[in-house]
């Protein structure tokens, strides 16, 4: 059982987390024909938008209610209404996902009430466009919370309470923000191999996979359809991936009586065995040979790869579910997670991370604790720590803005885990030191307190 430690510092240095509203917008972006709308000053939207663009290398539809000083004091309902109407007329979205920011939440208003009134008053104009609300002030939480709230709001606001009947082949899948486009595609392929029809909510694989359409489209194009969200109650079972998705799964169970099974991670042999077994149970079909072969390949990769992992020290900084997923992956290969830093403390998964201590903190703390590690694992903002410490950085999560193709790396499932083993092992292999007389001199090593290795030169990564 890991202990969760909090920092007492007043200044956060090199923040690890991205904000809750951004997490909610991220989830909304996985829905077809959607424009997420931040309720706050325009800077909030601009910053999130630029960060999304840097990560996905795509235009991102994201709008603002453009609150100013006066509107903040007087109340933002007018701005909210105007924004929704403008969005409707200019972009004709199928869904507007409203995310509140710290500014409007500090002022404190009855957003749900205001929104209900707007929807009632403008029912005719807004016909064909769903509008849902996620309360996501950035003085709480981070990406995971925002993501969860957005998905809960969609199920709560759109999923029909009256299911005509269960479709025995239909299942609902609730992934976390850390699933890339390629991860989602892998999950989908696995599920379809059993003859099942997954509705993945949200589905970034259709919306943020980076394609060149033939025309200019002002909303998201691709992703979960609003219709599919509406009919989600027809699903015979729900698979939630990541502890953070429990709330949404519970909501679906409450709204439409769909039972769920939660998988804390889908990276790794045992975790995916569980997933595949569940699919076999739901579909009543045996596991296809293709999957069995992939499993065998993974077993082979574990054997080939373990040489590079056993005894290695890994420092990880990530959101709670993502941290759990990464830490269990490394632990399963015999590596030791010597530093674990995360963004917020609320998640039940943190106690299960295979480390002694999980620190709630920032990348400044991460840099202080990670000295002596063989690998840093976090998003692009870890690059300064990597430079200062001279330790290679393996980029995961969000945001990754200084490398291409992050969205198309698959690290879940048998194949994805296999590839992850190769990717990480290759980082180790490309950073091997040549042995030197100084480095191996037993007397020199005896004097130092630290690990016996030649002092690393700062590397560029």
């Amino acid at each position: 059982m890991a202990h969760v430690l909090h920092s007492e510092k007043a200044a956060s240095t090199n923040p690890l987390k991205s904000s809750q509203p951004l997490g909610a917008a991220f989830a909304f972006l996985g829905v077809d024909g959607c424009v997420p709308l931040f309720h706050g000053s325009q800077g909030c939207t601009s910053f999130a938008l630029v960060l999304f663009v840097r990560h996905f290398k795509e235009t991102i539809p994201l709008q603002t209610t453009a609150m100013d000083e006066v509107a903040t004091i007087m109340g933002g309902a007018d701005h909210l209404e105007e924004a929704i109407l403008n969005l409707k007329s200019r972009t004709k979205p199928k869904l507007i996902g409203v995310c509140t920011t710290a500014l409007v939440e500090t002022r404190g208003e009855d957003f749900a009430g205001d929104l209900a009134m707007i929807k009632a008053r403008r029912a005719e104009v807004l016909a064909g466009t769903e509008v849902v609300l996620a309360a996501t002030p950035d003085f709480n939480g981070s990406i995971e919370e925002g993501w969860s709230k957005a998905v809960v709001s969609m199920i709560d606001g759109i999923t029909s309470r009256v299911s005509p009947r269960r479709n025995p082949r239909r299942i609902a899948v609730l992934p976390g923000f850390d699933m890339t486009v390629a991860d989602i595609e892998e999950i989908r392929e696995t599920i379809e191999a059993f003859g099942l029809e997954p509705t993945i909510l949200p589905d970034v694989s259709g919306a943020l996979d980076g394609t060149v359409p033939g025309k200019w489209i002002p909303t998201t194009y691709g992703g979960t359809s609003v219709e599919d969200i509406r009919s989600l109650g027809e699903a015979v079972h729900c698979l939630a991936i990541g502890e953070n998705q429990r709330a949404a799964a519970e909501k679906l169970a409450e709204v439409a009586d769909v039972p769920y099974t939660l998988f804390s991670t889908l990276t790794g042999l045992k975790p995916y065995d569980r997933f595949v077994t569940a699919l076999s149970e739901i579909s009543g079909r045996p596991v296809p040979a293709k999957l069995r072969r992939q499993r065998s390949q993974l077993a082979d990769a574990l054997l080939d790869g373990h040489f590079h992992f056993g005894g290695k020290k890994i420092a990880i900084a990530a959101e709670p579910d993502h941290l759990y997923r990464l830490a269990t992956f490394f632990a399963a290969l015999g590596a030791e997670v010597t530093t674990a830093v995360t963004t917020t403390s609320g998640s039940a998964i943190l106690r299960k991370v295979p480390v002694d201590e999980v620190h709630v903190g920032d990348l400044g703390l991460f840099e202080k604790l990670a000295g002596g590690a063989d690998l840093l694992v976090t998003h692009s903002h870890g690059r300064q720590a990597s430079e200062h410490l001279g330790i290679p950085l393996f980029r995961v999560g969000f945001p990754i803005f200084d490398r291409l193709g992050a969205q198309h790396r698959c690290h879940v499932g048998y194949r994805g885990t296999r590839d992850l083993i190769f990717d990480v092992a290759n980082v180790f292999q490309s950073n091997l030191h040549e042995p030197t007389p100084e480095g191996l001199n037993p007397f020199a090593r005896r004097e130092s307190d630290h690990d016996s290795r030649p002092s690393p030169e700062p590397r560029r990564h």
Partner: protein
Amino acid sequence: MLSPKVQNLFDEPGCDKNQAKDEKARKKGCSKPLTPGAAAGGCAFDGAKIVLQPITDVAHLVHAPLACEGNSWDNRGAASSGPMLWRTSFTTDLTELDVVMGQGERKLYKAIREIVEEHAPPAVFVYETCVTALIGDDLDAVCRHATDKFGVPVIPVHAAGFVGSKNLGNKLAGEALLDHVIGTHEPDDVGPYDINILGEFNLAGEFWMVKPLLDELGIRIRACIPGDARYLDVASAHTARATMMVCSTALINLARKMEERWGIPFFEGSFYGVADTSDALRQIAKLLVARGADAELIDRTETLIAREEAIAWARLEAFRPRLEGKRVLLNTGGVKSWSIASALMEIGIEIVGTSTKKSTDEDKARIKQLLEDEHKMFEGMAPRDLYALLERHDADIMLSGGRTQFIALKARMPWLDINQERHHPYAGYDGMVELVRQIDIAIHNPVFVEVNEPSPFDADGTVIGEKVIGLSRRSAVAAEPPLPVPPPPGGRGLVGMGSSQSFGRADVGGFSGFGAGSPTAGAPSSSPPSRGRDREGGVGLSADGELATHTHKKFAASGAGDADDC
């Protein structure tokens, strides 16, 4: 407390546009009011950070909940020749509890102390944001107290996001420097060749392409605000003899007030483009001489200009054969618009349009003169219209900022970043050559030929392009010799050739000649290849193992699918 300051900024004698307004219009400020649902520009906090963050040795502390700093840090392209503290992100990361319990000020004070103790910076800049302004945290008091206690200047920057646009934030940052920084340090090496440069950000290190020119002339940059700046230099800026203002819309208030307060004359110039770089050097020399420098500076400047221009034009001419007649669309702000346009036109490039959204009237007049066609100037273009223009291929390349990058790319049109996120330096004579070189590389990149050719498959997947094998169904049946071994019953058709239509699949392991004449060709697609043993390459073998073609043999020999049962 903020309002009078902001109001004050709305009255700017140094700005023509501003003075042309009547009093009432002036009071409303520079930006148009934002439209909810149709805006996505940056806020005042963003603008303030842009101006101040490149000051390299200062600790920049954002007093806010997470998003303001957390979503935006380490995204500046400015470069430093030394200290890197500016790249470290500090924020008080206010929680709900902090806000509700009114602990913001105390947390801020503590944060400042932590930073001073750990990093010993020459100064700390503290940025106010929407939430901290709303809850009324007294930034000035905390900063004053901290300055006294820790003996380090702690500067409050009042530019909360919701007070206005990015541009307003630029100006508020300038005000913060005037109120608290400039004039607080007396250097001991004041001289007649000292200048300030305002609004130069040293993006991608480009100022380092210009500084050597000034060094050669013996001109010393007292303070470059903010590119590659040091706090003490900024604090000494009041001792310079002349100021060059690079981006007027951002820091006109700073330049004008420095003139008022310390008698430092300023001019507006740019280092983008050959003519502009020369002009800037001339103006600097002129002002310095007017303020007492030896007049021979002017001759030396002209000599340098002549030499550098000759080199630059010679290098640029080399690009003429490759770029003459190419059409460039400029979609960027103010200063860059006309000076770059004129340089490009010098080597035969055609400017098909330029945005004048952020241009002053003077800029606009110059552009009009240059382009001779008013229709080529546009205020701003909606993404949809921009996309349409590019899709029609009315231009060969667009030069703009990152926000419109994907419009060009989705229209499969070459694009070059000339704004703050760029990775290439474009200032000075060498910078102009570099810009043209990058345009050349971008326009001629073969990917644009490839992606602009239509796909050989239509939206239903039918092959509409040139055939590879050149077979039609009938001729295929006639051409192939009959197979000695028919495929096993049960529809084990051709691997990867489920449909009878896909004759274009010659790439699948050399199956090209195989099976085209088989009995199953033309039949509805058989069941998908069975899994497991019959993997790709494991072709259905008849019981006696007779192989039809060498292809069979090759794949059977590889052992694919035989050893492992998973």
